[in-house]
Every structure is written in C-alpha cells, then in structure tokens.
C-alpha cells in the first residue's frame, strides 16, 4: 500500500495494518522533521510532490521490495504540505517471516523512496529565510 497525504500519518494504525500471522518480524521506519541542519535552526518544512509520478515510483518501489524479500505486507506513506518540528514526514512499515529480511526490506524501501520519488522539501529557517533542498552542487 502506498499513499501521499496532507494529513498526519497514523503510524500505529499503519504498523497494525502490515502485521500478518506468518510474519514474525515487523519493522517501522519514521522520518521526522529535525530542528537542526548543521548549526542552522529549522522551524518547519514544506513538502511538495509531482503526485502522479510520485505514486507510480512508490508503487514500483513496493513491487521491487516484494520481489527481493518475502514481504507479508508493506505500507509506505509520505506527508505533503507544512510540517512542524517532530512531525512524521514519511512512514514505511514492513512485515516478513524473520527480522533480518524485515530490516533489509524496510531499509531498501526508504532508501529507494529518497533516491527516486519526486518529492521535495523546503527548509523554513528560524531567521525567516527559506531554501528548497536539491541535493548536489548548488546552482
């Protein structure tokens, strides 16, 4: 299951949703809004997506993950809009028969999401300035 949402992510419900009788391992990853980047203070992040392609790439990531590990169920949800410090921006929950494969599958899914999915964050700094985050050399 994949989803983009403007609402807070209910990660407890998401975790319950992926539990399966034959899965003895459940891993939940949460990405949360951090208050410091180096020595700069963040007050909020704005997230935006190119929704059609973002959903397609998230679905492909789920399919790739299922092809590599014996996933019982998995869920990936990314939040969009304005998020305050500490709020959950992304959640990935994965169940597998054993813990090693659950950890690996969850790690793979979040890494692929961060690498591929067209979603962007904007830093809103404490001094009132803002910066879109585009990894790589500045332009």
């Amino acid at each position: 299951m994949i989803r983009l949402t403007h609402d807070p992510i209910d990660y407890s419900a998401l975790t319950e949703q992926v539990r399966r009788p034959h899965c003895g391992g459940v891993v939940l990853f949460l990405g949360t809004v951090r208050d410091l980047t180096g020595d700069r203070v963040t007050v909020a992040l704005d997230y935006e997506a190119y929704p059609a392609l973002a959903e397609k790439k998230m679905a492909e990531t789920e399919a790739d993950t299922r092809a590599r590990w014996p996933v019982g169920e998995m869920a990936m949800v990314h939040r969009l809009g304005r998020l305050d410090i500490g709020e959950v921006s992304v959640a990935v929950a994965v169940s597998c028969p054993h813990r090693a494969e659950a950890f690996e599958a969850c790690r793979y899914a979040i890494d692929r999401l961060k690498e591929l999915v067209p979603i962007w964050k904007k830093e809103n700094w404490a001094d009132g300035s803002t910066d879109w985050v585009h990894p790589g050399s500045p332009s």
Partner: protein
Amino acid sequence: MQCRVKLFARARDLTGADEVSVALPDAATVADLRRALASAYPALAGLLKRSALAVNNEFADETLKVPPAAEVALLPPVSGG
C-alpha cells in the same frame, strides 16, 4: 510545436511560474527540450543541468522524442523523506 513544462520546487521559484511553454521543432528530443528551456529561461540553466525531465509520467532519456501534447515535467534533484 509548443511544449508545456510543469515546474516544481526551486525551478518554480526561479521562474515565478508553475508551468512554462517553449517552442520545439517537430520530432524534438528531450535533449532539444533541455536546450530550449535553458535558452528561454536562463534562470533555470544551472538547476536544469542537474534535473530530470519526465514525459507522460515517466523519467525520460535524452534521446526520447517528445510527443505532441505530452505532459512534461522538470524534476530538480529530489529531497523527500
């Protein structure tokens, strides 16, 4: 043909528009589109070099011919998560 390109994040801020339009010859490729965008919108040139282009909801290779009336999007380096 006129090719409309959706813009996101810093690309939108640099142009002040969430969509721009450039003239392309028929059978133009994604590489041609990239050059046309940089020429028409010099403010985008730097970011464009490290951005992907999507055509009809898929990342596009530079050699792909841009179909008429395609949905095209300029995708700066992503930072979700």
